[in-house]
């Protein structure tokens, strides 16, 4: 529930800013989801593919690559749903595998959730738990904390440019 007295969120044209209290709430929701399902692996990313959190048995999975593909998968699914007039909030994609099933779930306008469960886990149950977690995650991100920290990168434009320039120079092999 949104508190009407709460500070207005700082509105960026794109993306999402997470404060420590929101990060803790997200961890709590993901842990609960993992236990309740139960899920083998849970990954939360921003809709453009940037990873926010991952927990469980990740094995050899390349998380960065997975984040970008999960985001792409959700984006394509949303667009297909829109084109075919089937779009609804909290889109869910189910992929049945030989040993595990995976879900990709829209968690509000900013987040996408990837959950891998054992084949033995009833799909209806997993779907229910994942949808609920998606709603909770969305609410956490859309509700800014009471105490909004000072938001800037801490340096003036010129110094920031110089530091980024140096950072890029440092990793480039000529």
């Amino acid at each position: 529930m949104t508190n009407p007295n709460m500070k207005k969120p700082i509105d960026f044209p794109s993306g999402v800013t997470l404060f420590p209290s929101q990060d803790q709430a997200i961890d709590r929701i993901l842990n609960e989801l993992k236990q309740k399902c139960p899920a083998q692996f849970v990954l939360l990313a921003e809709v453009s593919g940037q990873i926010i959190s991952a927990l469980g048995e990740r094995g050899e999975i390349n998380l960065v690559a997975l984040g970008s593909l999960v985001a792409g998968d959700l984006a394509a699914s949303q667009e297909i749903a829109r084109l075919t007039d089937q779009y609804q909030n909290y889109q869910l994609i189910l992929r049945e595998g030989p040993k595990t099933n995976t879900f990709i779930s829209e968690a509000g306008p900013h987040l996408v959730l990837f959950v891998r469960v054992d084949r033995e886990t009833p799909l209806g149950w997993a779907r229910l738990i994942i949808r609920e977690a998606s709603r909770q995650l969305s609410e956490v991100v859309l509700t800014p904390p009471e105490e909004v920290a000072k938001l800037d990168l801490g340096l003036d434009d010129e110094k920031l440019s110089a530091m980024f320039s140096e950072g890029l120079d440092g990793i480039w092999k000529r």
Partner: protein
Amino acid sequence: MHINWQLRELNLKIVYYGPALSGKTTNIEQIHARIDPAHRSELVSLKTHEDRTLFFDFMQIELGRINSLVPKIHLYTVPGQSYYEASRKLVLRGADGIVFVADSSPERANANLVSWQDMETQLESYDLSINQIPIVLQCNKQDILGALTPAAIKYLLHNYSIPTSTAVAAHGEGVFDTLKMITLNVISSIQKQMVTAQ
């Protein structure tokens, strides 16, 4: 953009846009080959059987700590072929900056214009105009005989003030300068947004 103040991470998304075969994937491949492996992810490419980009190419660059934040830059390309319009729109979602890779071959002049107009349309679908997001124009394939000059390409696109770089991406020339230019423009833009938002 995604900032996680708990983990002190700053995540940026930069998209390479442009007509088919202008060199978008080549840019990313060159970046991937020339960045210290300790600071970059694997290259993810969703390609057709003909080795053309189907959905996107993707890689992540991680810079060292800057003023207590760890910046991570996500690089994406869009598929250039005209019939992948819907995919281009999806890849643009959440972009913090765009590199428009123009093909400097004279016979591709119109393809550049069509792609530029397509980019404007896709941005409009997100309520953005080309003036609201940092864009760098990369005039690629400058080694071609009779290559269009940057001034000619800007004239063609009716955009004279856009930051511009020249490149021969296939040889790695101009690739890093372009990446640096867009990154610095994005950082400057984010810093301004933050100051304005307070």
